[in-house]
């Protein structure tokens, strides 16, 4: 039923596991569509009262965008690419039940953005997070918007312009990781939180979630609109394609000498 995810429901808790460990759970268009579908199904299943999202393997929650997909984009495809994010992000934003990110490893770029759109984040020292888009020649709009809401302008600009990845300890210190535990305890802690939240009165839970979605909607729409304009312009310049080719060439060289 799902090619790139593992999905399971136990008692009132649904769990979605991003499952491309050989690619650090990076996503391409079909995987994003599956993820949106899985979230929508959980949302509509009344017996599910809380959902956990995590990644397969020990290295990554998700590396974010699969650069093998984006390296061949043309400007038009870059514009529709941003609209594809709307489907996934809207599925997350439309969740009427709490969504918990169990950060088993790194969450980079759009996976960082997905993690930030979850409600509660559990992580460990190796839960590195950040917005390294600039290093691949990709301009970012949605990430900075989400980050600024949580971190304020100063840290947002520093992270977005340098592309620096934070370790789990820093993420915890500045408030992005709510529960900081040993690597082996991440899933158990996420499950404990999910059970606690699943037991809350569901109508109040649903209305609280709906209100957060409503108040952040203008910012979300603005960031998406800016994203469409910006990605089109970036790909017209040819820069992201060149940067990603260089990235793959570098990686191939490292592998052949290793």
């Amino acid at each position, binding site marked *: 039923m799902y090619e790139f995810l593992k999905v399971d429901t136990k008692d009132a808790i649904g769990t979605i596991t991003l499952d491309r460990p050989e690619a650090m759970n990076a996503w391409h268009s079909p995987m994003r569509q599956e993820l949106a579908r899985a979230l929508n199904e959980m949302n509509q299943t009344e017996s599910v009262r809380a959902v956990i999202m995590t990644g397969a393997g020990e290295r990554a929650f998700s590396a974010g965008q699969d650069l093998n997909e984006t390296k061949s984009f043309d400007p038009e495809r870059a514009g529709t690419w941003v609209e594809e994010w709307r489907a996934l992000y809207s599925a997350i934003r439309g969740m009427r039940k709490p969504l918990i990110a169990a950060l088993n490893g790194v969450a980079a770029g759009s996976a960082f953005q997905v993690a930030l759109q979850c409600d509660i984040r559990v992580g460990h020292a190796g839960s590195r997070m950040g917005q390294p*888009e*600039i*290093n*691949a*020649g*990709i*301009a*970012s*709009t949605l990430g*900075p918007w989400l980050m*600024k809401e949580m*971190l*304020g*302008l*100063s*840290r*947002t*600009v*520093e992270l*977005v*312009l*340098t*592309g620096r990845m934070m370790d789990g300890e820093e993420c915890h210190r*500045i408030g992005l990781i709510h529960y900081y535990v040993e690597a082996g305890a991440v899933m158990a802690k996420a499950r404990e939180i999910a059970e606690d939240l699943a037991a809350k009165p569901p109508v109040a839970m649903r209305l609280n979630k709906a209100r957060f979605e409503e108040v952040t909607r203008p910012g979300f729409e603005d960031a998406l609109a*800016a994203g469409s304009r*910006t990605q089109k*312009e*970036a790909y017209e*310049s040819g*820069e*992201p394609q060149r*940067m990603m080719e260089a990235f793959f060439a570098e990686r191939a060289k490292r592998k052949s000498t290793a």
Partner: protein
Amino acid sequence: MISETLSMTQEGPVRCLVLNRPDRLNALDTGLRRRVADALNEASDDGDVRALVLTGAGERAFCAGQDLQESAEIDPAAGRHWMASWKAYFQALCACKKPIVVALNGVAAGAGLQTALLGDLRIGVAQARLIMAEVDVGLPAITGSFLLTQHLGASRAMELLLSGRAMPAEEARAVGLLSEIVAPDLMAGRARELAQELAAKPPCAMRLTLANLRRSIAEGMEEAEDAAVAYQSEAVATGEPQKVMAAFLARRRDRAAGSTR
């Protein structure tokens, strides 16, 4: 190129601007504001500049903000004209197409702090102090309020604005306003190094990312500046800020005279 109050050097793709009125704590008078704005506008469109460093001369201050000597002498009727010149100054910062590394070599107060907050990366020496004390000179801090709220959230911004207290560098680092604290003799080098790092990023992604980050701040600043014209004019029309500043300057003269005796 060196003008009397703003010095400029270029090292590879990095242009370094130094506020150079150390005897006045690098305060921004009309002339310096215009020079900084011109330099930023020029660097913005200069293909050889990929990143900027902005710092202050001397060991005491990055920038003490507005030049109180000048502000104390404003004719109430000229309040709006004075505000328009500030608007042009902040506009140049908000519209800059290149990333700006701000190196706080000392105190950043009032408009000096706002200047720092409109930069992109901030580092500072341990002796640096961040102060938004407009309230102590009888002026409402309208754009300062907007910027502090963007950086720190409403709770910390309000406390700083109403108290006018000095935030030490260590606290500024803890709340994220400074990304690093650097020894004074290493700071200029570290600022250039960070600027070089930003200068080496893919330029199109940098330009578009910056444009997007600046867009929302520019809109908010413009709204705050328009509001500030009305609020500052109301304050200046009461004569209170001029009186408070004149008293402040008189105390400073007395202290200076006392210390030479």
